[in-house]
């Protein structure tokens, strides 16, 4: 029972919001790359928002449902089809036992998500169901998925969904000759959250080591365009572009902690942005940090895309953070009312 991974795709893993509280012991956080797309997909299926989901990149998986389920796709677009009929992102969809969901090659964006009502049933390891592939822990047997893997789905009452008694009604019809229903909910998701641009401007907060750079170096960073190289994975995105100049203090520091979105600049002067699977500590200067509201934009910008940085204050960044939290809450409320 649950879902059968008929074809696993290139790098498909089980993730949730990550393993919080163990970084002081050296455990990386892991968790989803695009927290917003993942949260929205979870909310659409009636989950609380932090249930385990599938994350995939470049080539998505093919999945056969071995029981009825409610699903939603989010993030990158992989030309999804359900039993041969196209399935859009950002809508909840009732699927039945035996249905086949096929995800193809990436078309738009970068990282995709499949949320299932109740959440995926893998053991919690140290408070999280996220896969840490490098340390072989959490998720499905601590590894990326392979053809033939089977994953259970948690019953709604065990998943803390809507306080355990949620019975979201699914209305509307999806695909005429199917008894599959679906809601036209995409309109509820703010349009700007659904954008997947190839050329992005992300806002950053300077620091903590901006004092290791020359004025010209900061100027370069804030005005020039950088290309997303193909050395990008869940650990970090390496960018290419004009060199960012360090001052006489150099490019190395005594190691300190690393946040999601930290922009390291080693002595070669090219930025490396630290992502979900980043190591807990590092010894390179960090010129700035991408604000959490703009991380999804960056995550969905695949190799070949371009990035510009715009410096804002931490106060402004936190205002956007709060606005987004409010939007999320509103979406959750609207969905509960449906």
């Amino acid at each position, binding site marked *: 029972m649950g879902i059968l991974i008929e074809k696993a795709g290139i790098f498909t893993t089980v993730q949730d919001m990550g393993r*919080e*509280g*163990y*970084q*002081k*012991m*050296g*455990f990386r956080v892991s968790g989803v790359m695009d927290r917003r797309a993942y949260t929205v997909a979870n909310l659409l299926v009636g989950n609380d928002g932090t249930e385990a989901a599938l994350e995939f990149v470049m080539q998505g998986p093919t999945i056969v449902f071995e029981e009825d389920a409610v699903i939603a796709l989010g993030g990158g677009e992989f030309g999804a089809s359900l039993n041969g009929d196209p399935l859009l992102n950002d809508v909840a969809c009732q699927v039945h036992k035996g249905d086949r969901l096929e995800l193809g090659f990436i078309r738009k964006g970068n990282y995709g998500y499949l949320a299932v009502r109740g959440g995926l049933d893998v053991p919690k*390891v*140290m408070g999280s169901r996220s896969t840490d592939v490098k*340390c*072989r*822990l959490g998720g499905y047997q601590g590894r990326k998925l392979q053809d033939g893997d089977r994953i259970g789905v948690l019953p709604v009452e065990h998943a803390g969904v809507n306080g355990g008694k949620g019975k979201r009604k699914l209305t509307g019809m999806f695909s005429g000759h199917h008894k599959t229903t679906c809601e036209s909910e995409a309109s509820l998701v703010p349009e700007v959250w659904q954008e997947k641009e190839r050329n992005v401007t992300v806002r*950053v*907060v*300077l*620091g*903590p080591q901006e004092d290791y750079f020359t004025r010209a170096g900061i100027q370069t960073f804030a005005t020039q365009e950088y290309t997303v190289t193909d050395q990008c994975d869940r650990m970090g995105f390496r960018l290419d572009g004009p060199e960012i100049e360090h001052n006489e203090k150099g490019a190395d*520091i*005594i*190691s*300190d*902690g*690393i*946040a*999601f*979105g*930290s922009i390291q600049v080693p002595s070669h002067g090219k930025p490396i942005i630290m992502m979900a699977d980043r*190591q*807990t*500590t590092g010894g390179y200067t*960090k010129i700035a*940090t*991408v*604000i*959490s*509201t703009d991380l999804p934009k960056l995550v969905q910008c695949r190799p070949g895309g371009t990035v510009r940085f715009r410096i804002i204050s*931490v*106060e402004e*960044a*936190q205002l*956007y*953070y*709060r606005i987004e*939290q409010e939007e999320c809450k509103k979406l959750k409320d609207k969905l509960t009312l449906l």
Partner: protein
Amino acid sequence: MSEYPRVLPAGDCSAVVEFGNTICEQTGGRIKSYMHILKQSAPEGVAEAVPTFRSVLIQYDPAKILYGELKQRLEALAQNCTSDDQAQGRVVRIPVCYGGAYGPDLAFVAQNAGLTEKEVIGRHAGREYLIYMLGFLPGFPYLGGLDEKLYTPRLETPRVRIPAGSVGIGGEQTGIYPLDSPGGWQLIGTTPVTVYDPDREQPIPYQAGDRIRFCPVSEEEFKRIKESGVWEF
């Protein structure tokens, strides 16, 4: 007045509290003390604190507290920390079977130091090492205080797989590999205890600020501890 401690933003959801810019026991002690204070009275919204050689990274939820207020609170708490906080750090005993198949590079370390293998064991096990931080791998301790005589260059060609539990020396450092990992350290022994156990209440038996003492055990004791799983850290 010293520029430390100071609080800097690390994006909209993190801040870093810096206590210095050197690796030394005094800074290490302050950080240990600060972690203790945070445990007692962390400001609301603080989710996680990550200590390193010279700083503590604070992750927080800006929906609960904004940077300006957090910075003030963190600065105020930093006024209360002391550097003579060693009493609070535990001494964690780690049994080690040295040499032979358990420590294939012990002979090289001895030769490099101009000591006998027995002398190397005596010096390595004869002191306590402060854990400055855990990183690189889950539970990998960055230890201070290795006997200078035991400084040994890393392997020219790193091993593809170092088994979990290996105790080694790399340059001026010594430590334990909690997981199988590639690595270039000289391996001098193996511990029979499971350093990383995700199902134990504390998956790693020590934390930054504790001290490690290596306790030599014979092959028989190694096997007994390994089989029974019984060891008082």
